């Protein structure tokens, strides 16, 4: 009875079905753990949290230089910028837009820098459904390789005020 004092000899080693289940459950917990370091070394999708201290002003200046050097067009008034393969790409989040839009190539690797000008934002790449946190003061670097061509939409998925739902960006992959 769980609501009365246990028998005096309650300190007993598990046995029978309980013992079997304890073994199975513990083995499963070890599998759960092993998968993470294994994927870290063998898998292609990892969140390493690589990041550097920055400020909104400093980050914005780098984004402007990136846009000036690499702009290839506009989409609904926002510059489309083609990042150099193997090089840096930038996208900043602010209430309530992503800036600039990017043009990337399949199979090329980019260092995508994400940061915020104001509140926290969420970089959510759709319909791929990849999600990363964007925090002011942190230059969050994703070393990213697009695997399929197409037009992708960046949705903000961290609440950032009344216009949050309209904070939409674009990444074009050829």
């Amino acid at each position, binding site marked *: 009875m769980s609501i009365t004092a246990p028998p005096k000899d309650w300190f007993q080693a598990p046995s029978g079905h309980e013992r079997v289940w304890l073994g*199975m459950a513990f083995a499963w917990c070890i599998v759960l753990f092993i998968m993470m370091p294994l994927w870290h070394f063998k898998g292609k999708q990892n969140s390493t949290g690589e990041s550097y201290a920055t400020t909104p002003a400093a980050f914005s200046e780098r984004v402007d230089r990136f846009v000036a050097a690499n702009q290839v067009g506009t989409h609904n008034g926002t510059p489309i910028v083609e990042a150099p393969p193997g090089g840096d790409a930038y996208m900043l989040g602010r209430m309530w837009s992503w800036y600039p839009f990017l043009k990337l190539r399949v199979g090329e690797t980019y260092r995508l820098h994400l940061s915020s000008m104001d509140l926290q934002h969420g970089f959510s790449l759709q319909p791929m459904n990849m999600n990363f946190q964007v925090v002011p003061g942190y230059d969050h670097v994703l070393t990213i390789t697009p695997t399929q061509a197409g037009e992708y939409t960046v949705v903000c998925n961290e609440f950032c005020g009344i216009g949050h739902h309209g904070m939409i960006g674009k990444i074009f992959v050829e």
Partner: protein
Amino acid sequence: MTTLQSNTTELRTCDTTGLPVFKGAEFFIRLNAVCAVVFLLVGGIAALLLALTRWQTVHLLGPEWFYRVLTLHGINMLIFWLLFMEIGILYFACTTLLNSRLFSKHLAWASFVLMVSGAVMTNSVILMGKADVLLTSYLPLLAHPLFYLGIILFAVGALLGVFNFFGTLYIARRDKTYAGSVPLVTFGATAAAIIAVVAVGHGALALIPVFTFSLGLTPEPDPMWYRLIWWGLGHTSQQVNVTAMVAVWYLLATLTTGARAPNEFVCRAAFVLYILFINLASAHHLLVDPGVGAGWKIWNTSYAMYLAVLASMIHAFTVPASVEIGMRLKGYTRGVFDWLLNAPWRNPGFSAFFLSLVIFGFIGGITGVTLGTQQINIIAHNTLRIPGHFHATVVGGTTLAFMGLAYYVVPLIFQKDYIARPLARIQPYLFGGGITLMSFGMSFAGSEGVARRTWDIEAAGVYGASTHMMLGLLGIGGILAFTGLLIFVLLTVGTLLIGKSNKGRPMACWGVPKTITKIGAEAEREVDPHNTPGAMTLVVILLVAFAVYYFANWGALADVWHVR
């Protein structure tokens, strides 16, 4: 002091269970339970409005009120409803079960007044539109100072209640009011109380600097630092809910089926694992964040062995095994599932408990561990998959278990028999079924990339018909669950107001399984507590479902862009 003493030690013997009920403790259990139900209703009305807004076809609220109501919903449900209930449960577990008076009436009053004033302050600030910051209030988002002050006052009040619990444990031991070890339910409640102290400590560390910042007295704390510490509150407080819920499972299993733990040592050890291996660092919420590296994330996700998950997997076995043993002792020994088929399914205390166990384990537990895996979090973070997970743990699990508890608390502590009992018998199914549907809708919409905490998805222009169908499922599930919640609140409040008193006689029985064969020593000899094939079958099914879901998610992750 003498009058206070005589007040708190005055007691009656429960006419149903024969347990002692101390008048002083009973009074505060009642106060806390009533407040809990009031805040459940506030949070529930908010929930309905939210479900009807996220159901994109209905889209009831405008953006301003959507985020305001979302803030209200999170705080009233996750903090006010659950903590008022938990303080009541703590007072019960340390007085009635230990045959002791409550440590201090003054402390209980101070706790209660602080909690109520904090809750009213925070709710008022939210409804005035001064705190549209959601439950987490992530910096640099900033609310009115009184929003933080209200939560801090509430937390201090809850902490005083926890100290009162510890004080009672002390005087009970000192005065030798019980013999031997504390009962399992009290042990579990103690684990919850210890984790609550850890949670409130993190809360103070995170919210006090933000409170002083909002007053302009101190500089702005770093937003990543805030996320780390805030989740020391946010995640740890969910462990309080889990631990209290498991204690309630054991309690309800005992009251409804005469359950008996297969091995008290293993059950208690599992509670200790909760205390030791909860994620102090709350890493599950920072898995795709900047500022913390892969090593930190992998280590803090699991401490290498997932021992808190192991604890839940142990309870996943020992709780149904307790029921199986209790039922086998009553003579339900045929086959593997005779005990389960003959369980008192029309007893809302039992159905709420068992549905809570199944929803928590099969939906909440499996999704929680999977989404909290470091790399898999990339395809889950801040999508609707996350609320899809925690509505199965904290609503389908904890809230449903606490509702089941109320079907005993009201007759035994308020001494009133429930009105409209047939309605009460279907309520757990309605609520549990609704939450399950809603959780499925959320999880599948989230898998298709729909963000949580977002008023509208049309502006993104990427979601098709199947997503809208899933959001419709969310809406319909939400309506069903709200109906279940409303029935619960109306029945409970109605019973307190016009229910028949059962003073001087046992409570009206909800129905418990009859003993059909031998009783006593003879049955004891024939039932081996180490042989529970029914519970074993259930957990093997759980493990298979777990493995399928877990590896399916690794498969889905392998399909997305490469990223380091």
